[in-house]
């Protein structure tokens, strides 16, 4: 898991709307008492800054949507209803953010307080928690050397009201900048979020390791004038803790001057914290309570008890804590310990890989639809190549003239950019489609994932680069598309001793959210591996290769050992040899009570059957044949 923290996010968001060489001081303050809270927009200037400057800061993100040059600065072209809903959620969260800030800064409870300041503003003495009026007076009377006073006079101080909803919305857009680094990207769900959470499980090898991944990630963000810190650990909670080790929300924008000893980055200005697997808890010990996302009230209580770091907190007996700490504190503590799994809620893509076809002459049949998809797929492949990602699923939406929409989805085992491969699986799915009306519009949408490592192709020897696992992945895609996921299966032994439950069958094409690309690779490698078979019990020999789904009743005399003529389906023959019994009995506390005596029975015709006597009713059943 990787936690990507955007240092001093409210200020960074505003600074992105200013020219790169701007020396303006920026300070963000809590809402004025008469504005009624953060959820109301107030663009009025509140400092020694002109109205036009302040408005430009507030409206810049919306304007930048038109340019579309920077994905991180443009808003997605969403439908009005969706935007309204998203906005409503943002504003609900903003109320929570404001409550948190008022808790953090006592001044903000009754008045207006500075909650975040740029580096230049810090240099001028403006600090979070300072009353707004005091900050204004400090900005207007900068003391010190003449050079500093001249510099201060040339620069303006921009005091602007905090807009937590905008912060959240902009943070969501940042996910698009880092989309190619992880298949699942979520946002920190705590108050005043400033981080993105990336599930990079299995992605490290694609970039040469987790550290190079983090460094490339930070370099990409630096190109967009974003200062970030990345922490990689086993769990989300630990990664978040290391990214917020020096406190939450009170962070200067610029790179830290004191480098952390845990950082293993090769470059000075790329602060990466990489915790070796399994060592997170030990590394967490010196961190403050705030890094553990412990609520402020609980932190105060713990401080009074002399507990100031996570080592002391984690050492406390977990059984006693629920009666003393809040529910949120206990939950976050469990997340830190790793006893509870933290699920990352994925941020939907703002700019999906998509291709659309519309025509006033609708497409009538499957063949025409297939031609349309063949026309659209190169566009999808082109987008995938430009973004350096692969498609793991292709969705096709067919809109008829009457407005009804049909959707089909084709999945792949491994992400690919290959147009032919994508077309293959989609064409097989299209065969299952029933089109009641002509189709006026076809939309293809690709769900993307990082690409596996590209391998070197041999120009002259065409056989050497054939990798069985890759060939297998392609045929599995086709089989799953045509026959369905449930038809292409892998088998594993289960704990049950009952023959019909002895095996556990699972689809090869598992849900992408349940398994990582590592797991897929592992499964494919096992399928083609040439390892020797482990030693097995000889009793397995007594289980036939063909097991009837429902045991079939036989007309044999109700004796302890089978005898007489065995008639089954079209065959009938005298029993010539019997081997057994082998008793199979479930525990009395199991749901299904089974008590059977199994026998291997050979007939005079040479056929061998697996039959059992049900000890509950005394009847004989045929359960399988030795094929």
């Amino acid at each position, binding site marked *: 898991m990787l936690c990507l923290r955007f240092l001093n996010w409210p200020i960074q968001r505003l600074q992105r709307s200013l020219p790169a060489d701007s020396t303006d001081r920026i300070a963000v303050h809590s809402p004025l008492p008469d504005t009624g809270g953060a959820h109301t927009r107030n663009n009025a200037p509140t400092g020694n800054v002109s109205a036009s400057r302040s408005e430009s800061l507030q409206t810049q993100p919306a304007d930048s949507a038109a340019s579309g040059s920077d994905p991180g600065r443009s808003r997605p072209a969403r439908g009005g209803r969706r935007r309204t809903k998203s906005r409503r959620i943002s504003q609900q969260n903003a109320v929570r953010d404001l409550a948190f800030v008022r808790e953090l800064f006592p001044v903000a409870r009754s008045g207006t307080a500075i909650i975040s300041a740029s580096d230049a503003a810090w240099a001028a003495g403006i600090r979070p928690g300072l009353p707004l009026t005091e900050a204004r007076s400090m900005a207007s009377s900068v003391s010190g050397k003449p050079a500093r006073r001249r510099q201060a006079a040339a620069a303006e101080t921009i005091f602007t009201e905090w807009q937590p909803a905008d912060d959240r919305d902009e943070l969501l857009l940042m996910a698009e900048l880092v989309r190619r680094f992880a298949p699942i990207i979520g946002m920190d769900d705590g108050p005043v979020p400033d981080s993105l959470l990336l599930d990079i499980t299995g992605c490290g090898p694609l970039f040469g390791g987790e550290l190079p991944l983090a460094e490339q990630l930070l370099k990409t963000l630096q190109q967009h004038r974003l200062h970030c810190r990345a922490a990689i650990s086993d769990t989300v909670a630990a990664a978040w803790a290391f990214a917020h080790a020096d406190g939450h929300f009170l962070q200067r924008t610029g790179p830290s001057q004191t480098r952390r000893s845990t950082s293993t980055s090769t470059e000075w200005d790329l602060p990466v914290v990489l915790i070796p697997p399994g060592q997170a808890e030990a590394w967490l010990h010196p961190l403050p309570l705030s890094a553990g996302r412990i609520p402020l009230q609980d932190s105060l209580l713990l401080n009074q008890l002399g507990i100031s770091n996570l080592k002391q907190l984690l050492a406390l007996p977990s059984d006693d804590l629920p009666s003393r700490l809040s529910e949120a504190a206990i939950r976050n503590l469990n997340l830190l310990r790793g006893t509870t799994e933290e699920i990352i809620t994925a941020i939907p893509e703002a700019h999906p890989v998509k291709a659309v076809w519309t025509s006033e002459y609708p497409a009538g049949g499957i063949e025409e639809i297939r031609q349309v998809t063949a026309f659209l797929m190169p566009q999808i492949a082109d987008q995938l190549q430009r973004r350096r990602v692969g498609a793991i699923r292709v969705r096709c939406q067919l809109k008829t003239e009457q407005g009804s929409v049909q959707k089909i989805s084709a999945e792949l085992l491994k992400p690919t950019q290959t147009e032919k491969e994508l077309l293959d699986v989609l064409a097989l799915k299209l*065969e*299952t*489609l*029933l*089109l009641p009306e002509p189709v006026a519009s076809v939309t293809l949408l690709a769900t993307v994932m990082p690409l596996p490592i590209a391998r070197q192709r041999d120009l002259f020897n065409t056989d050497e680069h054939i*990798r*069985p*696992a890759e*060939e*297998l992945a392609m*045929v*599995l895609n*086709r*089989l799953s598309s*045509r*026959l369905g996921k*449930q*038809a*292409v*299966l*892998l*088998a*594993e*032994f289960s704990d049950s001793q009952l*023959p019909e439950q*002895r*095996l556990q*069958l699972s689809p090869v094409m598992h849900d992408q959210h349940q398994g990582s690309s590592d797991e897929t690779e592992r499964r494919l490698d096992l*399928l*083609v*591996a*040439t*390892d*020797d*078979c*482990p030693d097995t*019990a*000889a009793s*397995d*020999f*007594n*289980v*036939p*290769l*063909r*097991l*009837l*789904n429902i045991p079939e009743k036989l007309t044999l005399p109700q004796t302890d050992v089978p005898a007489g003529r065995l008639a089954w389906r079209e*065959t009938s023959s005298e029993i*010539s*040899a019997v*081997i057994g019994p082998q008793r199979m009995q479930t525990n009395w506390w199991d749901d299904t009570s089974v008590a059977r005596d199994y026998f*291997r029975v050979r007939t005079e*015709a*040479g*056929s*061998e059957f697996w039959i059992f006597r049900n000890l509950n009713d005394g009847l004989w059943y045929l359960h399988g*044949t*030795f*094929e």
Partner: protein
Amino acid sequence: MFGWAQLSVFLMTAAAAESSVVLDQLRRQLKVCQVANRSDQIQSSGFQALDRLLPDGGLPSGCVVEWISQSDGLRTASLALSCAKNLLRRPGALAVVDAAHEFHPVSLSHLGIPLSRLLLIRPSGIDLTESNRSAPPGAMKSQTSVLLKETLWSLEQLARCAGISVVLAWIDRLSVTAQRRLQLAVEHSGATVFLMRPATALAQTSWADFRFHVQSTPNTGSSAQQLDVRLVRARNCVLQNGRMVLDIHDETGAVSEISELADPAASAVSAG
């Protein structure tokens, strides 16, 4: 007296001898071409007696083998899987097309094949294709024919894949076209296809490289089950009456060959 009749007989004999030589040469050339196309890999079946029956002393890569079982319960599939064990020494999965949904691979590991190598394909037989759904209700295809279609399609896809070493499937009916397609598929990939077929298939045309007929031998008083395996077809070979007898131990499941019953002369003679 050396008449015209004797001369004509002499010439005919010489011509016949010459034609047989030419035929032999042609056979050899064909064989060389086919062997070259088959990635020149011959692998043992795991049974020496069976290898002796086979013209190249083993199973070549990229071949179709039919196993015809005289009746149910003769362990024919187990025998085929025992041969598959050797073929799985090269990278690739074992794919089983199980249209009946009755294949139960618990004993697979006992046959020497790890369960992790198994890919199980279970076609449902429900046709959702537009061609079938748009047809009038009376003309709807039966589930059996759809199942057969899906089974054959899966079989061909798997046989064409270089990531598959062995495909095993139970097929009752197989058209000549399907057999030819299957043959081309295995020649392309190098996979080995084992088709488990009922006794009725003996009367049908076969394009398989090898066809084995498995029967139970009369009980000789031994506690073990005995199987009589006959090679009834070998492609491009002059086939003689080759057979072997296998003994399957009741308790351990160990398969042993009864070599003294195998006739060394009763084997297929390679055309090469």
